[in-house]
């Protein structure tokens, strides 16, 4: 057994189990999600490959000839092979975290394989667990100075001096990908990374399986059934989408368009946003019609219908008509005052197909969660100009400013928080990190619970890396999550990822690695100080709270 000799590499691999997967698929004849025909997983620990698992899968559908030409798997080959439902538990057990190990799912173009797995698991009523994700096609190669000629696995293997004996065979692909991942992690250790979390944090947004959106071809079964109303839209309704609203519509034309919008809302039609964006009539006219439909949907407590209309209305909101010399901010806040409480009172889209808006069906941010972000941004205006007055961070103005005024005057907290985060983001982008830090700290103290702000703030606190800092960062994440209330905003996924990162670091602080590995390559924790006589503790009286 060869173990990594470089201490940084040892540290990087401490408590880590890399599960490299690869799937071979075939398209479903009905246009549904891709079906798996072959699945392989390779497990790596301590910098070496440990075990392999491979199976052919009977996809229950005829394998498309085009797919067979790629991976060479035909209908005859999968006769008698298990269906996915039979191997699903094995897949989950491979991904399961155990023995204080952290499982990291690795693949080349991981979002594809994750989406396929998720769709297959959902079809048999199971969920893909949320585990950390390492994509050999993502930012990792560039981060460690590897520049493949192409994005394919072959391109990566070429630049690393590796070969794949059987391209497009699931097991061979997974093994090649695993070899590539091991080399990339070796290079990462040589580049100074001795902590997987630090490395992982620099790999961009899709760092967890939950952050990967299902691609259109790999819709899960639940989504497929949920999108039934949209895909089962009547031909008459779909025909209606071909009629565009002109620049100067007559009253009957406008009435007809409005009726079609109502129908879209009732059917939770995913094409409504497109229909509105393609309409050539002035925004104020469209807004008036959409507001009317929105009002109707709210009055009948149709949450999904409201979300459908709201999603189409939000892009037009910054063109809202203003009265006289009324500023854009005042107009937007007036809109928020009149619509915000009604929208908030509706709650969230439901679970069954009929009560989900198109965004919820596609597992994207629901308009009922997205509107405060849009309204906050419009009300804020230019972040550079607003930065000075939004929230004071020192002196007599500390804690005072537009943000505090909005909160005191009953503006939805999510709107104010979104505006505040926009300013922090602007300051970070323009290189004013010191201002961003001060504003972030004050924002948190003033009650701002925007997920991205919380994630950023927790990250800054955790930088010091002491147990106290990490505990505090974890508390920031948990406090922010307490304000989530089921929101589907993407920032919450990022915050969850941050929380897991911080929690992992905290756990590793508690469990000190001895630097040795067991026969499986797992890092052995250092022996506790006299385990049978636990250390006595005494709480210091003057420790900083």
């Amino acid at each position: 057994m060869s173990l990594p000799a470089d201490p940084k590499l040892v540290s990087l691999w401490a408590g880590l189990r890399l599960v490299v997967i690869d799937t071979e698929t075939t398209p479903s004849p009905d246009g549904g999600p891709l079906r798996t025909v072959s699945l392989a997983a390779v497990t790596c620990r301590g910098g070496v490959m440990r075990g392999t698992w491979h199976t052919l899968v009977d996809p229950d559908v005829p394998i498309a000839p085009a797919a067979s030409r790629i991976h060479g798997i035909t209908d005859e080959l999968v006769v008698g092979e298990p269906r996915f439902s039979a191997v699903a538990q094995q897949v989950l057990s491979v991904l399961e975290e155990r023995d204080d190990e952290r499982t990291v799912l690795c693949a080349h173009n991981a979002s594809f394989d994750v989406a396929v797995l998720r769709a297959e698991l959902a079809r048999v009523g199971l969920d893909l667990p949320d585990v950390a994700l390492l994509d050999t096609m993502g930012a990792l190669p560039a981060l460690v100075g590897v520049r493949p000629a192409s994005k394919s696995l072959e391109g990566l293997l070429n630049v690393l001096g590796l070969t794949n004996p059987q391209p497009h065979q699931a097991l061979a692909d997974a093994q090649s990908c695993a070899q590539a991942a091991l080399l990339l992690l070796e290079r990462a250790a040589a580049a100074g990374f001795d902590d997987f979390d630090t490395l992982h944090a620099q790999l961009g947004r899709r760092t967890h399986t939950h952050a990967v959106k299902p691609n259109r071809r790999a819709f899960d079964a639940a989504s497929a059934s949920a999108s039934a109303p949209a895909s089962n839209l009547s031909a008459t309704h779909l025909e209606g989408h071909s009629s565009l609203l002109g620049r100067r519509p007559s009253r009957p034309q406008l009435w007809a368009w409005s009726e079609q919008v109502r129908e879209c809302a009732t059917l939770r039609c995913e094409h409504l946003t497109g229909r509105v964006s393609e309409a050539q009539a002035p925004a104020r006219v469209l807004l008036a019609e959409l507001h009317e439909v929105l009002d109707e949907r709210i009055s009948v407590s149709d949450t999904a219908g409201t979300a459908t209309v709201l999603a189409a209305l939000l892009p037009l909101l910054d063109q809202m008509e203003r009265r006289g010399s009324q500023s854009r901010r005042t107009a937007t806040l007036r809109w928020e005052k009149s619509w915000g409480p009604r929208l908030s009172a509706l709650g969230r889209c439901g679970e069954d197909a009929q009560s989900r808006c198109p965004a919820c069906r596609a597992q994207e941010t629901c308009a009922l969660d997205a509107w405060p972000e849009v309204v906050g941004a419009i009300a804020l205006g230019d972040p550079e100009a607003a930065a000075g007055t939004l929230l004071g961070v020192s002196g007599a103005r500390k804690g005072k400013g537009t943000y505090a005024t909005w909160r005191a005057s009953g503006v939805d907290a999510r709107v104010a928080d979104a505006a505040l985060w926009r300013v922090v983001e602007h300051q970070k982008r323009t290189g004013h990190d010191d201002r961003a830090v001060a504003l972030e700290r004050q924002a948190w103290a003033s009650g701002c619970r925007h997920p991205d702000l919380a994630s950023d703030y927790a990250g800054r606190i955790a930088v010091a890396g002491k147990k106290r800092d990490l505990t505090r960062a974890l508390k920031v994440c948990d406090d922010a999550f307490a304000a989530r209330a089921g929101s589907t905003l993407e920032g919450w996924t990022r915050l969850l990822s941050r929380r897991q990162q911080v929690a992992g670091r905290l756990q590793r602080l508690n469990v000190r690695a001895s630097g040795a590995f067991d026969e499986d390559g797992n890092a052995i924790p250092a022996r506790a100080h006299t385990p049978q006589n636990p250390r006595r503790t005494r709480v210091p009286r003057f420790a900083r709270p």
Partner: protein
Amino acid sequence: MVRHGRYGKHTAKRRQRYLCRPLDGSPAHTFTPPLPRDHVPSGHEQCEVCEELVGTHHGQAAVARRHTWSARLVAHGLDKLSSGDTYANVSNWAIRAAGVTRSRRKAQTTKARTAPGAKPTKKVKNVSAATRRDRAAWHIAADWVEAFSPVLYGPLDERLRAEALAERTRLDALRRARRRLDRPQVVLIDDVPVWGRDPEDKSGRTRQAGFAVLVVAELYWPDPATLATLDPEVLDASQIEDVSRPVTRLRLVRAMPNVQATSWLLVLDELGYTPDVVVSDGGTGADLALRTLYANTPTTVIPSLWHLNQTIQRAFDKVPGAWGLDDSGQHDLVQPLRDHLRKLSRSSGVLRNSQSWASWWDDLLGIVTELRLPVEKLRKSRAKWEAPVAASLSAMRRYPRIPVSTGGLETLIARRVQPLLGRRGNAFANIERTNLLFDLVVARDHGVFTNLNDVARTLRADAESADGWTVPLRTISDPRPNKSSYSSLRDAVLIDDLARSRGLIS
């Protein structure tokens, strides 16, 4: 059971191992007790502290596992520390008393450490051998304070707290019944500014050390049952008066970054109960803290008349015509002023009522005007002191035995606290450890160190209750940032954070 060799070859003290041959015939086994005993070599059967002879089986038991030092030695060292000895002195004494040798790294010359072509290492300051020895050893005693001060002070604090709360309950019942409080709870507070040697100044001048010591003392009334047994035929009136006089003892001694209200709030909050009377030094921070903490309680605050006297004397500092010689030839205020300030006591009648108190101030101003001395500072003092003292006159009349000055506390500070601060104000840096040291001072004032055998027994019992282990050491150390220094004892922000976390300030 017989002695069976030694172990601990690589530690400062060898330990004794034993062999047990059970009488029931079961196999023999070697063992060591949870608190290991020092090996007693033949010819050295003598206690290192008391010089009594000890048997070969009775080597000193260690104070805890992984501690080189015996419990008796540590008890003795803590006693020395509580009486004002420095960490370095006590540590060096312990090394000598225990007869241990400490392996030291050989001093390496700059030449020897510098490789060819490498940058020369930083020049080592030329310090005396004594200083080097002190720097290498001081942490021995500091570790003892960290580990064992709470073992001694904890039970005392718990007992005092419980007694005070029980007394508080009794007094509250009396108050509800509108009866006079026979033994009111009285607290005296004062602060001690700390001065240390200025390392920048080669002339050896001192400067403010950047922290202060806040002291709280309690008035302990004699037990009524004891008083009832006093026989007037055996003791004369003055002896009975001595016995029945309340005693002032230290209750809390806290090193804090400043004497502002926040620091006082933390100290008074730690007291744990609301006293009936507080005799205060009249400092701004203390006053504000008392007003904040006891705003809605029947607590009476009596400004210390001794401090008022000092304030008035300071008003005439370097004022020509205000100073002269007294009857014994000592430098003092001129006769009329001196006589008038002497009236600041219970017996003179000045404190009879608010009219007499106001007229004392009028007379003072009259004397000063007649002497053609400046009155501005006096007017300011009057504005600050007259009303608070007038507000406390009724309490003074009601309880004639409570002090109107912090004189008793000043004596305690001079005897107990000042010896710790002499010439080493700058040496204190860690707020946790310094306050653990001051806890020992309080323990000493309450007689904890009267019998060192009891102290050693307490230390051993505490360790044995946890199978010989004590708390891990140096967990309270301050962070040591790169290229700068940090002292938690001088960190006012820390005090603010603590007060905020305890809900004392917003």
